[in-house]
């Protein structure tokens, strides 16, 4: 490409244009303190193929790809480009060899424009280092048109939807002439229709001779687009196959190591009185825009209502408003007959509401505190943990010694600090804390995000138990399988407005997908809610 500055010295392989390349990984091994993340992994990516890397959270997929992208160095093994061993000391080396990566958590600068983000690191400049925004704009538009990725070069990234941000990431990789594109869990943040669009883009990239490594734990997506599938478990390759020779069930078994239920089995709900009643709720996000727009719904005792929707459509703000963490601009929140609209977080918790926060590290746990202290985070000021102003730390430890085995938290002791636990164990601490309190309403936001299958199953079981003991449960989740599997009634949020809740038998997966993308059904929500809004 004429006119582009190359400001890093030449290294590994020299390329001209985006040729197709064959990528090989042989015997890649990587150890972190206490864990063998990658165990002698062999993998080949042929030119022009979509190669799915399948595995549950924690299986080692991202680590492997970070090695391929030059972010980590392997302890053993080598990387081969067209059969020649190479060493990637940094992402620049990988980029120069033709590897591009779209990370699970986007590597974008929110306050920069799309064009600035795309060219960062390989900027287009005029004399004296002045940025050439005009050429950058043209380049972004050209790439967008060539591969069907429409993005406006001049918008600020922070005002783009998640799906649009992902397109920017892909354009970034293509701008650097990636021959192999690594996509790390791209569909986790997309609506079903956006997922279809992405899969189409992948096909057009394939036709242009590029290869794609598609990392996912979603069996459906894997079966739909893969040319070949490699399954990782516990850091090792446990299977390699093609969709024609396999099935979702078989893949699931390979991923987890034993047969698992693909659907959560739960007995029918026996709903009772209304516990949570939300009417006309409106709330803002942290930039002052409306995030929750006139939302109304009920949750009854003994039932689970799940709210589906892609991140960023107001679910986060809805939960925070319900818990008193954000002010309510309009509307009412009533829990068990008490008006909690302007209640503080403490008052809400005291009223019998449990909260499993979306971000367990930021909102759910205090990393420096011990497990015992974290288990008492909501109740430290109440007897037996406190007598008046005096704290009783031994009581906290006793409590922990009961809860740790009860919730199967793997830890050397009750005094270990929570920050050292794995993600699954951390979430178990949060669940142990909230589920051990007397609650009439449990609000769980993304309760199983990023967890291993064992923890996911465990938490789902506990939620169903809680429901059957008579609590009302509200789950917010962007995982469609979780929404369908757990919801007695299902609602969908899009741009702050809510469709539903509807009885789960009345909804198909496709209908939910359409609602997540903004369609309205015109159907009335069930049991006590307002009619679904029309946009």
């Amino acid at each position: 490409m004429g006119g582009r500055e190359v400001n890093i010295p030449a290294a590994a392989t020299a390329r001209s244009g985006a040729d197709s390349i064959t990528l090989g990984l042989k015997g890649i091994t990587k150890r972190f303190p206490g864990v063998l993340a990658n165990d002698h992994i062999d993998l080949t990516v042929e030119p022009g193929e979509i190669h799915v890397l399948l595995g549950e959270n924690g299986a080692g997929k991202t680590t492997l790809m970070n090695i391929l992208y030059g972010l980590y160095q392997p302890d053993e093994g080598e990387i081969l480009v067209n059969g020649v061993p190479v060493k990637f000391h940094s992402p620049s080396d990988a980029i120069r060899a033709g590897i591009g990566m779209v990370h699970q958590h986007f590597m974008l600068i929110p306050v920069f424009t799309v064009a600035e983000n795309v060219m960062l690191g390989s900027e287009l400049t005029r004399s004296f280092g002045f940025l050439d925004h005009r050429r950058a704009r043209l380049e972004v538009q050209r790439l967008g048109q060539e591969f069907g990725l429409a993005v406006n070069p001049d918008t600020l990234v922070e005002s783009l939807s998640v799906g649009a941000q992902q397109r920017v990431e892909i354009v970034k990789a293509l701008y650097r002439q990636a021959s192999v594109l690594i996509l790390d869990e791209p569909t986790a943040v997309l609506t079903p229709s956006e997922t279809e669009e992405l899969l189409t883009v992948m096909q057009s990239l394939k036709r242009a001779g590029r290869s794609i490594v598609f990392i996912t734990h979603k069996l459906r997506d894997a079966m739909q687009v893969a040319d070949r599938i490699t399954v990782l478990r516990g850091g090792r390759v446990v299977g390699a196959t093609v969709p024609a020779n396999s099935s979702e069930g078989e893949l699931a078994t390979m991923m987890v190591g034993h047969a698992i239920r693909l659907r959560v089995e739960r007995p029918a709900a026996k709903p009772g009185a209304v516990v949570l009643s939300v009417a006309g709720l409106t709330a803002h996000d942290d930039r002052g825009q409306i995030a929750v727009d006139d939302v109304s719904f009920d949750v009854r005792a003994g039932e689970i209502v799940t709210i589906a929707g892609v991140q960023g459509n107001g679910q986060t703000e809805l939960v925070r408003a319900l818990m008193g963490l954000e002010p309510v601009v309009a509307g009412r929140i009533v829990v068990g007959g008490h008006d909690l609209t302007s209640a503080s977080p403490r008052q809400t918790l005291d009223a019998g509401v449990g909260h499993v926060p979306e971000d367990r590290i930021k909102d759910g746990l205090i990393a420096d505190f011990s497990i015992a202290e974290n288990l008492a985070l909501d109740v430290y000021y109440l007897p037996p943990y406190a007598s008046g102003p005096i704290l009783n730390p031994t009581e906290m430890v006793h409590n922990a010694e009961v809860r740790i085995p009860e919730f199967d938290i793997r830890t050397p002791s009750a005094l270990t600090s929570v920050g050292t636990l794995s993600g699954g164990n951390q979430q178990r601490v949060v669940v142990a804390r909230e589920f051990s309190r007397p609650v009439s309403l449990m609000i769980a936001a993304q309760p199983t995000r990023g967890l291993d299958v064992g923890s996911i199953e465990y938490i789902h079981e506990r939620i169903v138990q809680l429901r059957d003991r008579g609590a009302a449960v509200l789950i917010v989740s962007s995982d469609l399988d979780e929404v369908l599997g757990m919801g007695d009634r299902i609602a969908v949020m899009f741009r702050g407005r809510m469709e539903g809740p509807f009885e789960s038998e009345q909804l198909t997966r496709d209908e939910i997908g359409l609602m997540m993308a903004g369609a309205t059904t015109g159907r009335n929500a069930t049991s006590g809610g307002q009619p679904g809004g029309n946009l």
Partner: protein
Amino acid sequence: MSVAAITIGARMAVSRRRTLGVFFLVVAAAMAGLFGSNVSDLVNAHFVFNLQTSSAIHVPDLVVPVRATAFGLAAVCAFLGAVQIVRGFERWAYVVLGLVIALFIFAFLAWAARSSSLSLVGMLQGTLVRATPLTLGAFSGLLCERAGVINVAIEGQMLVGAFSAALVASATSDAAAGILAGMLSGGLIAVILAVFAIRFQVDQVVVGIVLDLFCLGLTGFLYDRLMVPYQATLNSAAVLPPIPIPVLASIPVLGPILFDQNVFVYLMVVLLVVIQVMLFRTRWGLRVRAVGEQPRAADTAGIDVIRIRYINVILGGLLAGLAGSFFTLGAVGQFTKDMTSGRGFIALAAMIAGHWTPLGSLGAALLFGFADALQNFLSILNVPISSYFLLMAPYLATLLVVAGVVGRARPPAADGKPYVKQ
């Protein structure tokens, strides 16, 4: 998220608008009450626009009736306050705020100068002079924070800069050598800051404060050891004279203020333009800002985060050292213990109030510089305010500004967070 963000997360935009409007009304009431009442109708204030020393074209004095001015301007502020409460000025809110503050200051000056005359030009000239080290310090903080490193050691860097500049300029009788020495010593302290903040990842505010204490102790120690016994050779630097720019210095009013200043002021203006352009229009600036916002994203784009941070912190140290040289070579020629008196922190406040931009920093620094210059000018007039309160003025002004009257802006997203390469 910090403690502040948590507790304020609940504030709504509406109440912020109203608070600002109420502030305007309060200012209006203060103007009327303090400067308008108890003043007879006949009292006038003379504002002088000429300096005896300058060659600028002569402009007649401005004579204003104090009482009418106070009440008139108070009425304007009250009106603006009412509009702000009801409708809000939105994007123009900061400009209106600046206007209200300027009107208040004008009414105050009129009242202070009642029945006598005040050199407005002299006051503005002095304001710019006092604002110069604050702006340079703000630029220092700016370069560091835009790359994601908090530099609280500006105060210390200024002190060693002032000390070294006085020492070297005195010993060599060469002002340029003095300025260079000042800059280099600031840079040296910045190297220590950089190593502890970037390599050892110690909390940046802690390192900054400890370095301030270190510089305070070191300059005090060396002053006693070297400058007191050898005053004549080591602590008698010549103050740099103002250099009038031909033609431009003759412009009425503006000439003496902007174009008849010493080299530090001119350097400040040049740096203002250079930094503004480089930070927002060049490749270097884009990378620096990327490092300060999302260092991991910058890293994956192939940018050397650590190197950029080191370079920017050291550049910041050089600038702070330059700011420090001003205190000796640009003002009094002699070093005294703790002569910066907290101005490094005021510079930081100016940077924050200026929303981490060079132009904004200058604006805020002018306000603080004015407060700093107040004591000089008002001691000539018979103002019934204890001089000690006037000396407090810059610190109180900073306090008010930092308390968010000006509103909160976002610092670079990765500000203060050490970058951990995995």
